[in-house]
């Protein structure tokens, strides 16, 4: 008894052994990061201005001055992306179902089309449509002009179609085969099984990858500037020229474009991640 240490603390070896585990979970992001990003850009704009003479407009003033025009260009980008997405989804649904068709020839052709449009670079597909589709078509003597933005929209909807086809195929394949069998035993026709039983179950599985794809399309629309459609990036370059082509204006102007797309795509990304977690198939 008397040998016991007076401090009252147990022997060191008797202490619970503590292992420092490696931290592997990443912290979630908050809107504050977006605000910091914006603040950083503003700072960048400010420092760039500090280097130049004060006689000209500061980069921030330039952006404020031209913001309505640039934002209208951005709205045009969004419009192109939405129309491309609508066209691509409709076509992709058909292509995806064709890939699952009983007819082997139809399935092979649909598969080949999907692979072709999935593996070609978006920009190359855009060039393909811009250069090889005429600027107007004549149907029954009616001349229908095809403006460049309409052709660009079609150009974007081609890769969308192929990607949606893959999403549809994957989702249909993920439905348990018992569902097909149960529907068959209830005497549904194949068409009814697809439209009334399988596809409704697929919708929630398709939603997250579909939204991911939409964010990609929205970001891809700026490529239309390369082929001369006057969307945001084209307007940005024109604004830069109009402001005298000062080199220190490049970073703030393109930074503004980055910010617009970030503010548009980031919420989609977050929402997609949330849906993905909710619909996770375990």
């Amino acid at each position: 008894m008397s040998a016991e240490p007076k401090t009252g603390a147990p022997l060191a070896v008797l202490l619970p052994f503590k292992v420092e585990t490696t931290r592997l979970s990443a912290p979630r992001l908050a809107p504050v990061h977006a605000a910091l990003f914006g603040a950083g850009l503003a700072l960048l704009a400010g420092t760039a201005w500090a280097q130049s003479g004060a006689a000209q407009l500061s980069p921030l003033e330039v952006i404020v001055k031209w913001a309505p025009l640039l934002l209208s260009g951005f709205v045009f980008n969004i419009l192109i992306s939405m129309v491309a997405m609508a066209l691509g989804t409709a076509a992709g649904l058909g292509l995806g179902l064709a890939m699952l068709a009983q007819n082997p020839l139809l399935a092979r052709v649909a598969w080949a089309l999907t692979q072709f449009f999935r593996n070609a670079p978006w920009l190359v597909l855009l060039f393909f449509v811009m250069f090889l589709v005429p600027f107007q078509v004549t149907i029954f003597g009616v001349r229908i002009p095809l403006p460049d933005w309409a052709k660009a929209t079609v150009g974007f909807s081609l890769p969308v179609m192929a990607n949606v086809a893959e999403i549809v195929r994957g989702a249909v394949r993920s439905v348990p085969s018992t569902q097909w069998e149960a529907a068959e035993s209830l005497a549904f026709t194949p068409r009814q099984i697809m439209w009334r039983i399988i596809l409704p179950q697929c919708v929630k599985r398709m939603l997250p990858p579909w939204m991911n794809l939409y964010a990609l399309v929205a970001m891809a629309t700026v490529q239309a500037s390369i082929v001369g459609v006057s969307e945001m990036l084209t307007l940005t370059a024109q604004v830069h020229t109009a402001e005298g082509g000062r080199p220190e204006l490049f970073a703030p102007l393109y930074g503004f474009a980055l910010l617009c797309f970030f503010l548009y795509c980031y919420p989609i990304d977050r929402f997609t991640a949330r849906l993905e977690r909710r619909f996770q198939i375990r």
Partner: protein
Amino acid sequence: MDVIPAWFQNLYETTGLNFTVFYDAYDWNRYANGLKTTLLLVVVTIVLSLVIGAVGALLQSAPSRVVRGAINAFVVVFRNTPPLVQLFFFYFGVGAVLPAGQDQFGLRQPIIDNLQWAIIALSLFAGAFNVEIFRSGIEAVPKTTVEAAEALGYTRIRAYLFIILPLALRVCLPALNNNLVNLLKTTTLAYAIAVPETLYAVKQIWSESQNVLEMMLVLFATYGVLVGVLVWIMHRWEKALRIPGYGR
């Protein structure tokens, strides 16, 4: 040796399909140089983006909050903005602010040329995706494996390099495969800052020879082959790295 050029020359004379690249040495050279630039871009950006992904995923579990926040901000920003605008931002925006030298004619000679900017911008873009991919792989490594490594006296870095990363790599190879194919396709964006890659070279050829359709076919075939080769390599790698006892 002259069979192929002669055949394509004949094809042009009989059908009007003008594949200049296959019989005109000058056009062939331009196309081959474009292909070389594309290959250089693809290989260098793949390697760099993998390094960025691995380092970023390691830093995501760093003890410092600031480092973790910075990596997350990097990933979020680069994932949610268009790669083309990133490219312009770097090439025009940052490139214009950086100091530049002069060549013997007194022209502005930037310290980082357009090819290098394309490599930097594309690597960062693909690297941001790779960070997320590696993170998902790391999360799939069983906690017990990490603890076992620690019990064996591995330091954090060594456990990451020798235990966690090799296991995570195997888990995330399919996703990585997808992203690298995407990166290959994104290299065409370097066209926009006049990097003489395949699309750029082909565009030059078709604007001179007026053979858009034929060159477009060549372009599609080129990228089809490139993607095919990359996918084949990745599948071979996936097979070689397979963990026995997992999956089918």
